[in-house]
């Protein structure tokens, strides 16, 4: 275990930091928000050209063969800039689910296109009744002559805008368990409703009304998709947590600067002990969250799937709650200006609020941890 960045990791972080600071200023981001898109296609191409999309993809499929640590470095820096492009949703969540479940042929065909940014897929797993968790799944994939017919709904598909295909979790009646199918976004019978989220990103609600796909749409074995889905989700959660750690860092930096320039009662407000102690608590919250992220990375590298999922759930709830708390305090310490749309600190809070609800809320993951601990105590 080593917490120090290698020189390569440092270079990766520097390149992201430079990009976010220069090209993704708050003003540039605001312009993108006003354009009403989930980031820009140009930016996605740039991410690909810089190797960020392929960083953690295997070399045999056109990736750089890096690890989840590389993903975390990238996501954390993107989180500092509140970058809108769906890096977590498409380059991590969907890509890692595909890697965990696809056949060699499917991966050989699709992953290189994910790596070079020419093809984007999104993961459509959540339903109204699953609240961001992988289960239960009610969407049906009924076997028909040479494929499947899909009927049902997916509630909040991240990175769906601009995705050319979806990985869809479904029940196949003859194969108990969860199956994953790759469905092109333009299939007849599939309608996508685009929904704005509080943080300026977009998601889609999908309605499958007898959507037909071929037998080759099935990823892996019928009924055997859950473990791969969980693995993809675990990767996505870690990336989302890393984004939030970056967001907390930036919020704390911006707030510390503000406390030195804002004057009341004739002195900088940072001279007040109440505010100094609040800043110390925010820093403590951030560092505990960072360590929780490290615990998740440790579990991803070393533990069995059950322990991995429990640890990742623990990190999701701890880090999301930390981010809401720290970013909320960022607003508080700014006073009125923190409430304005024109100022950046409120946007970090919005992202934290949304992130808490994505991929299973803190409450859901807390319940998952509790259930895992109960199972362990019963054994």
């Amino acid at each position, binding site marked *: 275990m080593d917490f120090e960045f290698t020189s390569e990791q440092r270079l990766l972080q520097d390149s992201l930091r430079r990009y976010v600071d220069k090209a993704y200023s708050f003003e540039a981001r605001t312009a993108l928000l006003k354009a009403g898109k989930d980031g820009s296609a140009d930016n996605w191409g740039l991410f690909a050209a810089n190797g960020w999309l392929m960083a953690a993809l295997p070399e045999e499929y056109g990736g750089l063969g890096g690890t989840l640590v590389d993903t975390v470095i990238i996501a954390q820096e993107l989180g500092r800039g509140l970058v809108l492009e769906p890096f977590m949703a498409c380059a991590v969540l969907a890509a890692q689910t595909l890697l965990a479940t696809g056949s060699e042929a499917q991966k050989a065909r699709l992953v290189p296109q994910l790596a070079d940014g020419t093809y984007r897929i999104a993961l459509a797993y959540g339903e109204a009744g699953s609240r961001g968790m992988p289960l239960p799944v009610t969407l049906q994939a009924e076997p028909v002559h040479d494929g499947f017919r899909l009927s049902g709904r997916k509630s909040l598909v991240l990175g769906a805008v601009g995705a050319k295909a979806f990985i869809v979790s479904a029940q196949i009646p003859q194969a108990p368990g969860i199956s994953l199918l790759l469905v092109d976004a333009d299939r007849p019978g599939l309608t996508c409703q685009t929904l704005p989220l509080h943080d300026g990103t977009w998601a889609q609600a999908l309605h499958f009304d007898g959507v037909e796909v071929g037998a080759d749409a099935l990823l892996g074995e019928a009924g055997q998709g859950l473990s791969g889905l969980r693995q993809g989700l675990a990767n996505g959660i870690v990336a989302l947590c890393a984004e939030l750690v970056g967001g907390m860092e930036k919020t704390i930096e911006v707030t510390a600067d503000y406390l030195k320039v804002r004057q009341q009662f004739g002195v900088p407000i940072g001279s007040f002990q109440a505010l100094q102690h609040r800043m110390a608590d925010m820093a403590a919250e951030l560092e505990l969250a960072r360590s929780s992220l490290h615990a998740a990375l440790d579990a991803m*590298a070393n533990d069995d799937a059950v322990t991995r999922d429990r640890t990742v759930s623990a990190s999701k709830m701890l880090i999301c709650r930390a981010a809401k708390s720290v970013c909320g305090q960022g607003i508080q310490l700014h006073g009125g200006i923190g409430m304005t749309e024109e100022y950046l600190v409120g946007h970090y809070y919005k992202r934290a609020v949304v992130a808490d609800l994505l991929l299973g809320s803190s409450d859901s993951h807390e319940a998952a941890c509790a259930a895992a601990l109960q199972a362990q105590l019963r054994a």
Partner: protein
Amino acid sequence: MDFQPDASLEAFREQVRGFLRDQVPADLKGQQRCTRSPREQITRWQKLLTERGWGAPYWPKEHGGTGWSVPQILVFDDECSAAGTPTLDGFVHKMLGPVLNSFATPEQKAEHLPPVFNGERLWCQGFSEPGAGSDLASLRTRAERDGDHYVVNGQKIWTSYAHDADWIFLLVRTNMDVKKQAGISFLLVDMRTPGITVRPIRSIDDAHHLNETFFDNVRVPVANLIGGEGQGWNITKFLLNNEHATVADLPELKRYMRELRLIGSTLQVDDQPLFEQPGFALKLARLDAELQAIEMLVQRVARLEQQHNPASHTLGSILKIRATELQQRMTEAQIEALADYGAIAYPHPHEADPQQPFPQQALARGISHDMFLRRASTIYGGTSEVQRGIIAKMLFQL
């Protein structure tokens, strides 16, 4: 950054486990370790470690220590805690020892280092005074020069284990005419010297570790001065900066989690184990998540400390705040989980067994003592409020 298991550290863990399993007698294991162990046990444990060549587990090799890295020290403490060995005399191993190694004369080392290794000289710490807590530099206990002696007058407070100590290391004022920090000196005093009175202070954990210690014309040889006159404040800063990763008391936090799970499996609610109650299980999940994060934070601080990176100081302050708060929350969770049994004042584990056993004594005894004692964790070693001030200043220049 990587999260590959450290094979050499795991091999070291096996070595420590082997020693604890094969060479430590059963009556030196399974002890309650929250407070300092009784003298006889400390001495036996110390001699056993010295025989093994581990007599000073926290010191560098050149001072007769093991030369273990900070991560190794954490493993050693963790395994000793899991086995329930007695404690060492932490005052000499973690506070005075490094001071002696760095500042003492050869004569002073010859006098005080050998007894560390035979465990026959126990120490206590004389820093705080009734008027000098967080503002330690305002201390008023005076040492006036009289020939080859200092004459010490004044009062120390919160002197843990002074009633069972052979020597005390003491901060005294030797100069009234300079800035308050510059007038402080560091003295070693034999507790048998005439004029020393120790009065017990019973604490809310229903035990006696704390004392007031009075000095009435106590004559201390000048040879017992460490460093020069007026060096006391610098030595104190050195002493207080000596450990960061271990302030979390991680082995104790892990013990609290084990105990909490045991309570959850032992007590029954509606013919089911307590852990089946959603409220208990959710609380356990929250505490477990935080414990995992604290464990990683300890590892991070340990590695910074190992590299002598000053970032370990600020991160150590953060760790101290959060780990000590977690100590309090976990022991409170234990009491809450015990419900009716949580309200009972069981006899202190260091006291004799009651004639008629209390209900659930094996499970519940000692838990409330830990919980009440843990209120001190956010006060000693720099209060949480002092730590917050340090963090705001060091991280944000506020």
